[in-house]
């Protein structure tokens, strides 16, 4: 297998995301696929359906504001720095957005079921809440076939395409991530039907990935596209690369608050820039290089245990007689 899956953000989104698709939206409050979010808006994709556990940094709020999303199935969506998901609030009230609420573990379980290839999965949460009343599409209560006691089950979630941001990937599509295992990226990605689009801070040689396979989040065969994309999660964080841009998330949140000024943000920061590199350049031009520097993390937290993946060679048994004793010989 030596297919080079590297491509631009523009190519990946135009080639692999179709109108009406159901997307797994990765990240949690960090590693949110924001560059992919901006590109989907730039390409004016419509009628998307989102599956996610929880997400922050305002990515879904922007997608809703730009009219890309019809439905979302998730537990929590917010721009935490702006203290509310303003566009989502408006779109729901205007009847432009369908929400299917579920708990965090309900969502995690739904993705787990998709990952396992089973139709549903039992979880203990959601029971007794209004989630069961209003979201029978995803959540039901059944009798445990073994004990007869009530238990919540959640429907398996399988997206058409999964959107993921990671620290590293190789050109084949192996995805490497560390520092937090978030809530569902691996299951959401593996359970996707067509595959994964990944934006990565760094592209490395496959031999580097193979030297440390415990850190591989998604194996190459599930990956559709690898997009080299430094700052690809901005304004959310990327562990070891940059932190959450609180000021920018608040700035974006202020635009989202008032419907009439939302287009200014979209025009200036998304439609008006040609790609993610230009977006970051615009950020530097607007807020200064020091704004970007401020986001760099405190480093020096490297693993102190060296790991060796050494294996045992079965050839050493050649010529060694079978072990035996008097009982076996009997």
């Amino acid at each position: 297998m030596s297919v080079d899956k590297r491509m631009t953000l523009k190519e990946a989104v135009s080639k692999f995301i179709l109108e009406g698709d159901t997307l797994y939206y990765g990240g949690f409050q960090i590693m949110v696929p924001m560059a992919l979010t901006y590109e989907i808006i730039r390409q004016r994709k419509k009628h998307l359906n989102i599956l996610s556990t929880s997400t922050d940094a305002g990515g879904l709020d922007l997608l809703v504001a730009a009219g890309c999303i019809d439905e979302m199935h998730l537990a929590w969506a917010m721009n935490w720095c702006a203290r509310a998901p303003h566009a989502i609030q408006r779109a729901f009230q205007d009847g432009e957005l369908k929400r299917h609420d579920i708990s965090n573990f309900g969502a995690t379980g739904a993705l787990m079921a998709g990952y396992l290839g089973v139709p549903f999965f039992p979880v203990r949460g959601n029971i007794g809440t209004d989630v069961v009343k209003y979201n029978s599409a995803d959540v039901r209560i059944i009798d445990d076939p073994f004990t007869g006691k009530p238990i919540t089950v959640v429907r398996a979630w399988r997206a058409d395409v999964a959107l993921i941001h990671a620290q590293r990937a190789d050109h084949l599509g192996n995805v490497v991530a560390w520092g937090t295992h978030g809530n569902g990226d691996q299951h959401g990605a593996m359970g996707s039907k067509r595959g994964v689009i990944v934006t990565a801070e760094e592209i490395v040689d496959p031999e580097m990935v193979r030297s440390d396979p415990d850190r591989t989040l998604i194996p190459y065969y599930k990956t559709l596209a690898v997009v080299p994309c430094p700052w690809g999660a901005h304004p959310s964080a990327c562990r070891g690369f940059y932190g959450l841009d609180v000021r920018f998330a608040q700035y974006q949140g202020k635009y989202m608050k008032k419907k009439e000024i939302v287009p200014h943000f979209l025009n200036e920061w998304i439609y008006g820039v040609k790609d993610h590199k230009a977006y970051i350049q615009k950020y530097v031009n607007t807020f200064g290089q020091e704004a970007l520097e401020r986001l760099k993390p405190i480093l020096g937290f490297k693993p102190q245990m060296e790991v060796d993946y050494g294996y045992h060679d079965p050839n050493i048994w050649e010529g060694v007689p079978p072990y035996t004793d008097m009982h076996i010989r009997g």
Partner: protein
Amino acid sequence: MTGNFKPTELMVIRCAQEIIDGEVVFAGVGLPLLVIGFAMATHAKNIILFTEGGSIRATPPPGLAITVDDPALFCKGDGTFGMLATMAALQRGEVDVAFIGGAQIDKYGNINSTGVGNWNKPETFTYFAGSGGASDMAACGKRILAIIPQDPKRFVERVDYLSAPGFLDGPGARERLDMQGNGPSVVVSTMGVYKFDSHTKEMYLSEYFPGQSVEKIRANCSFDLDVAHDVKETEEPSEDELTILRDLDPTSFYLS
């Protein structure tokens, strides 16, 4: 004693006192993370912190965690396990305290963090972020600790959307649904501290904060509030406690 503190600060400090050293505490997003930081810096150095992001750690994070998947929570953590692992521990019954915030609470300790209005009439419904992990935590934590700012729109007869189960409609309801946890135990607001009657499962006022009174609290509660016969005033925080707390949140991200 100076009296020079914000209601939010006393709320955090009083809430932290509910956590016993050595317990496994599952903290939701928002003020709970600050409370845990404070508890770990003071009387409860041996608590084990779980978050929805999957952090499991026995030491305080090196900086203020703004979110439950905050990189700080994983820095020198004991594991970066992911949501599946911490939620699974909840379901196995290994979490002593499920600690959540919310927008509304009713007399049975049911919590709403989804939105206000009538969900069936979308034009009237204002969405917040959503339930997140609150429902999982409230169903499975051995006891539930809740932190909610107080006003009449938040302490309500019936929550607009039940996102996290308290005692539902009263005695026996949790048992009928085979919930693992024992339900709400303490609620701390910006005005006082509440507990639950073991028979009726209804909330009652057990302490009022300095500067508050039972009458003022009743006026900020939309249901007919029961008050303990030995209701007392909460002790003011010490200068030391306030210094520790303010050092944890120097930019007032939570305390503003």
